[in-house]
């Protein structure tokens, strides 16, 4: 179990390092970087590589934004397997990560209770 934490730390850290390199060396904005990583996650899942990564690293693979691409692709592929071509479209949000719904709900709540403050430290 301890190793799971170590692997989560290392794999999660490495995915973030890829993001940092895209920003610093590739000169991408955060939005471009995150979009790139999401596409990367989708492709990795298409090749059947992302699920093994989750089995290996746990939250190290589910917490980075790449897992968002993975779960969307996963849903689409699972439905496509069952229902054919139509499933590609309908399955997308079937298994999708709770990230979006949580972000929407907490975004709404956050807007009700917080105010933007221009502090620096």
């Amino acid at each position: 179990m301890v190793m799971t934490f170590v692997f989560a730390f290392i794999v999660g850290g490495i995915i973030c390092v890829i993001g940092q390199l895209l920003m610093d060396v590739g000169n991408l904005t955060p939005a471009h970087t995150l979009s790139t990583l999401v596409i990367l996650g989708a492709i990795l899942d298409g090749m059947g590589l992302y699920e093994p990564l989750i089995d290996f690293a746990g939250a190290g693979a589910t917490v980075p934004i790449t897992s968002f691409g993975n779960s969307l692709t996963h849903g689409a592929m699972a439905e496509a397997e069952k229902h054919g071509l139509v499933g590609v479209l309908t399955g997308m949000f079937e298994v999708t990560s709770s990230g979006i719904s949580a972000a929407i709900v907490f975004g709404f709540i956050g807007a009700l209770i917080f105010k933007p403050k221009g502090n620096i430290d």
Partner: protein
Amino acid sequence: MEKEQYQQLEQNVTPKPPYLKNVAKAFFVGGLICAIGQAVSLFYIIFFNFTEATAGNPTVATMVFFAMLLTGLGLYKRIGQFAGAGSAVPVTGFGNAVISAAIEHRSEGLVLGVGGNLFKLAGSVVLFGVVSAFFVALIKYILVTIGVVSW
């Protein structure tokens, strides 16, 4: 001074980002966030009826909840300044993008402000996530149909 000459001067004067330091900080903070995620997920496995396969969803939602608190208290931007991609790439960064936009645009009302601007920053992630998932699944479907690979 000519434009080219000035661009040369600008290149010389502008400091390069401290690549190594930034990478180290991103690794450490990103890793830490994921390790916290692992702890949250273990919590859900032990105390609730979630398996390793299903604990991802409540974990992500909980991490976004943490992101809301840190964003609202103005701490997430400080973590972001320190960690760069280390705090932007985990789902908490996605949450931060959505929640900070929501808080910011509260002044224009809940419908036009919060509703209209919620995905101002994070919308591209949703767009490219969905579109790439569509194409990846489509390609896989075609490959399976012509018998190159199996599901």
